[in-house]
C-alpha cells in the first residue's frame, strides 16, 4: 500500500514536470487477482494505479509498440527484475534506447510489495548480478527433473501430448516482450518452414521454433506460460534453454544493455564436444 501511494505521487510529479510523457503500470482487472495494463498520461489516471503481489505481468513488451518511443520522449514503466532484464535485452538488440526509459522497480515477497532503488537500468546491475548468483528458489520444477530422467522416446511422447493441445493461437508469442518481429517465421509462407495447421506436427514445430528463437533471450517472466489457454508448460522449455546458455556460454540474459546476444556472438574456444 505504502509503495503504491509513493509511486502514484512519483508518477504524478514526473508527468507534471514533463520528465515522462507516459507511465505504464497496472490497474484492476476483471477479478480481484487479475491486473490489466494501465497507460497513465494524466494525474487522474495515476490514481487508478495499483501495485500489489498480483502485478506479475512483464509489461516491457508495450515499450516496443510502434511509434511509442520515436518522439524521443521518456516513458516510465513498472517492472520487476525480469522486466528490467528484458529492457536490457531489447536495448542490446537495438529495439529501444534505455535513456528513454524510467524504471519504477518493484518486487514482492509473499504479499509484501517493496520498491527497488533506482531509475535507469544501470542502477539495477548489482541487483541483477545478485539474482544471477542466487536464482530464486521458486524456479525449482519437479516436472523438469522428471523430464530430464526420461529417455528420448518418453520425452517425445510427453511433449507430443502437451503440444497436441496447442491451438496455434500464438498468445505465447503476443505476450512475450522478446517476440517483437514484425513478421514472425510462422507467418512466412515463401518458404513455409512451419506447418500452420494445428496438427501435432505443426504444433511441435511451432513450439520448437519459438523456444529456439528465445534461447538466450528469455528472462523467464512467465508471460507466455500464463497466456497459454491450454496450459502447455512452456516455462519448462524456457528454463531448460536458459540453463543451456548459462552452462554452455556463461550467458545470463539481460545483465546489461550492452551485453552481446548469445547467438549473435561466439568465442573461438566454445565447446564442441558434440561435433564429430
Amino acid at each position: 500500500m505504502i509503495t503504491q501511494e509513493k509511486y502514484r505521487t512519483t508518477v504524478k510529479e514526473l508527468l507534471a514536470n514533463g520528465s515522462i510523457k507516459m507511465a505504464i503500470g497496472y490497474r484492476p482487472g476483471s477479478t480481484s487477482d487479475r491486473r490489466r495494463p494501465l497507460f497513465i498520461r494524466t494525474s487522474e489516471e495515476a490514481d487508478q494505479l495499483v501495485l500489489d503481489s498480483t502485478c506479475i505481468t512483464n509489461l516491457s513488451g508495450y515499450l516496443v509498440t510502434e511509434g511509442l518511443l520515436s518522439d524521443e520522449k521518456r516513458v516510465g514503466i513498472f517492472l520487476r527484475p525480469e522486466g528490467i532484464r528484458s529492457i536490457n535485452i531489447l536495448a542490446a538488440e537495438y529495439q529501444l534506447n534505455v535513456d528513454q526509459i524510467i524504471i519504477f522497480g518493484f518486487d514482492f515477497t509473499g504479499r509484501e510489495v517493496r520498491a527497488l532503488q533506482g531509475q535507469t537500468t544501470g542502477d539495477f546491475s548489482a541487483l541483477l548480478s545478485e539474482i544471477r548468483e542466487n536464482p530464486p528458489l521458486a524456479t525449482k520444477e519437479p516436472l523438469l527433473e522428471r523430464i530430464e530422467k526420461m529417455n528420448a522416446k518418453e520425452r517425445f511422447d510427453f511433449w507430443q501430448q502437451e503440444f497436441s493441445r496447442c491451438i496455434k493461437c500464438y498468445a505465447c508469442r503476443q505476450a512475450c516482450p522478446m517476440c517483437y518481429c514484425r513478421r514472425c517465421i510462422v507467418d512466412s509462407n515463401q518458404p513455409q518452414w512451419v506447418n500452420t495447421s494445428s496438427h501435432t506436427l505443426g504444433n511441435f514445430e511451432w513450439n520448437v521454433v519459438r523456444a529456439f528463437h528465445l534461447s538466450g533471450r528469455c528472462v523467464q517472466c512467465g508471460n507466455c506460460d500464463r497466456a497459454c489457454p491450454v496450459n502447455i508448460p512452456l516455462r519448462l522449455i524456457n528454463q531448460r534453454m536458459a540453463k543451456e546458455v548459462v552452462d554452455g556460454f556463461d550467458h545470463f540474459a539481460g545483465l546489461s544493455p550492452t551485453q552481446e546476444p548469445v547467438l549473435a556472438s561466439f568465442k573461438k574456444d566454445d565447446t564442441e564436444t558434440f561435433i564429430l
Partner: protein
Amino acid sequence: MSEPFEPKIVAFVCTYCTYAGADLAGTSRLKYAPNVRIVRLPCTGRISPMFILKALQKGADGVLVSGCHPGDCHFTHGNYHARRRWMVFRALLDFTGISPERVIFSWISAAEGSKFADLINSVTEDIRKLGPFDQYQQLIKETESPATL
C-alpha cells in the same frame, strides 16, 4: 513381403569444405552408403535449424550437418556462429524428445574425403540400428500430406 529398412539421411553441408570433401571421396572412388541426400549451402552459417526441422518433416530418419573446421571457414567465422546455434538447437531437440543420435554434426575439410566416406557409413549404420523414426512418421501421417523424401 517387407523390405529391409534403409535409413533416409539428409546432409546439409557447406560448399567450401564438406562438399569438396564429398567430391574428393567421389573422385577417389571411395565407396560409401547411398542413404544420404546432400544439400549444398554456401556456409555452415547459412544452415538454419529450420532446415533440420524441414528434413524431419519430409520424412528423414536422420540429419547430418557438416562444414569447415574451426578457423577454416571461407567467410572467416560462419562456422563459429553455427557452432553456438547447433549446440543450443541440439539441446532443444534432445529435451523435446528427438534423440541426438539422429541429428549429427561434424567438421570435414576438403581434404578429408575418407573421413566423409567413413562418417556416412557409420552414421548410416547407427541410424539403421535405431530404426525408422516411427514417432515422427506417425505425426507426419496425421497431417495427411506425404513425406516426400
